[in-house]
């Protein structure tokens, strides 16, 4: 007797035959476009064969507006390839001529006269004049984010097309460093007749590269500035792409989709090191990671408690644990490379016995407990705070770790509900700006005697135009702050890159460890 057919049984077989190949087709259809229309594989391959490089970054390029890029390293590092200030900081931390060929300071130290480099032109072929420089500085002064930096300049004169004179009311030896920053990278007067919004999409400057295309969120492509005054840029094409996920960045590097990844995760360095075709490149970086404490209430209103914490931390172990060795111990909240390129012995070196002695001298000789806030999104910090916790436990100080994002930390600080937090500062080429912050109402150590001393001595250093004199003041101030320990230096990470086989050699362009893409060697 034939078995009754259940509904749908017959059609099921046909459906399998009909649909299964379609699923395979979907993949095959996509996979079959290898020889298609110029995708990433094509670009990656070109980079290896010619003078093109593709760089993967964690964050998107949000703006190229010289004022707005202050909160975005991607912004200022791209803009610095396009536009240059009168003077520039090099990788050694020294000033070198940029758009200007020389400068002099008047005897009363109130006037700065710059001579514009002979024959220098913008990327649109127009010559650079003193009027362009004057416009640039006036425009920077109006910037809501960076304008405050240039308010010290009280008058701008242009006696001729190649000379510009800047005046200040007070001597300001640090001004030259402010003038060596991206907000005053020289741009054409009146934005070369363009609408400002349009101009900042494709800025015109005197740098080695200029913007060819910029698709927000996708990529920005730079090509050589045909009128560049220096050596011919090494690359015919330089592409920056945002790739937020660190694992994807690494896959793209290993696949050859990109040639350089910025800031590879520490956990991935082993993978790069183990791959014979990839390299880890590190450059000094003026970034300091440190603990800052609330000195207005116990336990950290007691200098002995603060010193005990600082003395108990093994910074070499922090560098190994948090940075896999890619960094230096930091005794200060200012990276050594921002102090003139030296590596002075700031701070209180690791000494558990002395830490115990300091604790015994404090108001809490039997130890104390405090909450340490940190950003768990930063892998090096997450590893480092574990070491800090273990180090301090050895001397009887209990650390309660609290992982919070930056905004949540700030909210607790605003409410006065905090003991200590991990902070980061990237210094400029000159540490003066950091001291300015230190003495401000929003600074680390408001209202203290030490703050007043720091502020007055930093102000006094502005009149010191001698070679290295200002740096000596900075070092002295940093040493005194470190010994008082309202901020406790932990480590200074180096700037890291993962490079693929297309990259021959790279060198830093400036003190922040940005790659000099004008001089990169491509295999």
């Amino acid at each position, binding site marked *: 007797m034939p078995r009754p057919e259940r509904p*749908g049984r017959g059609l099921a077989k046909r459906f399998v035959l009909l649909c299964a190949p379609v699923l395979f087709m979907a993949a095959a259809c996509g996979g079959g476009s290898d020889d298609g229309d110029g995708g990433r594989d094509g670009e990656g391959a070109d980079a290896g064969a010619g003078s093109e490089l593709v760089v993967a970054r964690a964050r998107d390029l949000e703006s190229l507006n010289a004022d707005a890029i202050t909160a975005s390293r991607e912004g200022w590092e791209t803009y610095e390839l396009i536009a240059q200030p009168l003077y520039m900081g090099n990788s050694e931390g020294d000033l070198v001529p940029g758009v200007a060929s020389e400068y002099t300071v008047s005897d009363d130290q109130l006037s700065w006269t710059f001579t514009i480099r002979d024959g220098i032109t913008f990327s649109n072929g127009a010559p650079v004049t003193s009027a362009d420089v004057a416009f640039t500085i006036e425009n920077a002064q109006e910037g809501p984010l960076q304008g405050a930096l240039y308010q010290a300049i009280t008058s701008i004169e242009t006696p001729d097309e190649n000379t510009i004179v800047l005046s200040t009311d007070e001597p300001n030896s640090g001004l030259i460093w402010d003038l060596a920053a991206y907000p005053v990278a020289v741009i054409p007067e009146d934005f070369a007749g363009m609408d400002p919004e349009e101009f900042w999409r494709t800025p015109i400057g005197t740098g080695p590269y200029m913007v060819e295309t910029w698709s927000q969120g*996708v990529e920005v492509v730079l090509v050589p500035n045909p009128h560049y005054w220096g050596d011919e840029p090494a690359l015919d094409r330089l592409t920056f792409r945002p790739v937020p996920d660190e694992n994807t960045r690494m*896959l793209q590097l290993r696949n050859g989709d990109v040639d350089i990844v910025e800031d590879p995760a520490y956990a991935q360095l082993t993978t790069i090191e183990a791959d014979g075709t990839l390299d880890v490149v590190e450059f000094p970086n003026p970034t300091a990671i440190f603990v800052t404490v609330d000195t207005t209430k116990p336990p950290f209103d007691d200098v002995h408690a603060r010193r005990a914490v600082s003395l108990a931390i093994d910074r070499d172990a922090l560098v190994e644990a948090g940075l896999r060795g890619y960094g230096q111990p930091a005794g200060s909240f200012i990276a050594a490379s921002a102090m003139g390129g030296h590596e002075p012995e700031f701070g209180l070196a690791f000494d558990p016995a002395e830490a115990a002695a300091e604790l015994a001298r404090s108001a809490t000789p039997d130890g104390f407990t405090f909450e340490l806030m940190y950003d768990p999104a930063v892998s090096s910090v997450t590893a480092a705070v574990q070491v800090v916790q273990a180090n301090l436990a050895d001397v009887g100080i209990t650390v309660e770790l609290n992982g919070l994002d930056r905004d949540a930390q700030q909210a607790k600080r605003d409410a006065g509900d905090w003991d200590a937090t991990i902070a980061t500062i990237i210094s400029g080429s000159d540490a003066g700006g950091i001291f300015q912050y230190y003495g401000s109402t929003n600074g680390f150590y408001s209202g203290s005697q030490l703050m007043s001393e720091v502020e007055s001595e930093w102000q006094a250093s502005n009149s010191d135009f001698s070679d290295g004199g200002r740096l000596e003041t900075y070092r002295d101030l940093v040493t005194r702050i470190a010994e008082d320990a309202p901020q406790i230096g932990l480590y200074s990470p180096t700037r890291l890159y993962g490079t693929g086989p297309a990259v021959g050699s790279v060198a830093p362009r400036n003190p922040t460890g940005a790659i000099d893409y004008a001089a990169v060697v491509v295999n």
Partner: protein
Amino acid sequence: MQRLGYLGRRLGYVLITLWGVSLLLFVMLQLLPGGPAEAMLGITATQQQVDALNQELGLDRPVVAQYVDYMGRLIRGDLGDSLVFGRPVVDVIGDALPATLKLAVYVVALSTLSTVTLATLAASFRGRAIDHVIRALPLIGVGMPGFWIGAMLLFLFALTFPFFPAGGIEEGFAGALRSLFLPALTLAISVSAILIRSLRRGLIDVLESDHVLTARAKGLRGVRLVVRHVLPNAAIPTVTLMGLVFVSLLGGALIVESVFAIPGVGQLLVNGFKRHDMPLVMGIALLSAAAILLVNLLIDVVYSLLDPRVSLR
């Protein structure tokens, strides 16, 4: 006439809901710790700099005044300028939308293909091993987080067997098809997990219904029977779900866009939150809410057109 009245009422509800969403978002963003000035200026900013920027951005005014101003501009169709990008929010979203749209279409296509295939197989072999296997698949799809599926797919099919690129969108139709396959598959696995169960149930009900038995008695078999008599009746709830999935994807697939470096609306939203770019976050959220509400309305209208038993009241 009845239909027009219904549409008018529903559009009114849409506007009221959007106003509620905007108010809720505005209040929530105000409650977030930190602010755009601090985010833009960084840790070394002095209080004077923060105050000056807040004044420049108009953030020093009372919250109510800020909201009234925002709503005034919103009514005129102006979503304002992004604080981070310094460009109109509409332009910024407009730049990111094509990538998200392509991904959403791809997800719907893959989901439809896999859902129809697997649900039909499961319904056809009801109670057999293949049915049990297919019914278990959605549990895996729902159980595995998207970022893990994405990472595994990348490892397998971009690195170990490099059939697909490791993220990004390639140019051209073929390039987009190839580069978006893995992210679309990642999302489709999760989406199909829900859809397969829905469609399988619907197919079983219809396959056992009288009109299908009648059709079979008349000799109708196989694909023709399914395409003409079973799927159209079984698919309505699934199509509804699919529509909602598509619209929700337009608001951005936050994790998948990040893992696969897709420059879409999801990444914009994440960055907007990180940088306290309130106009951008509000713009994305409002446009997403509007899309969901309007598609819901559209679905109801299409229902009434397709099925005379459904009336609009």
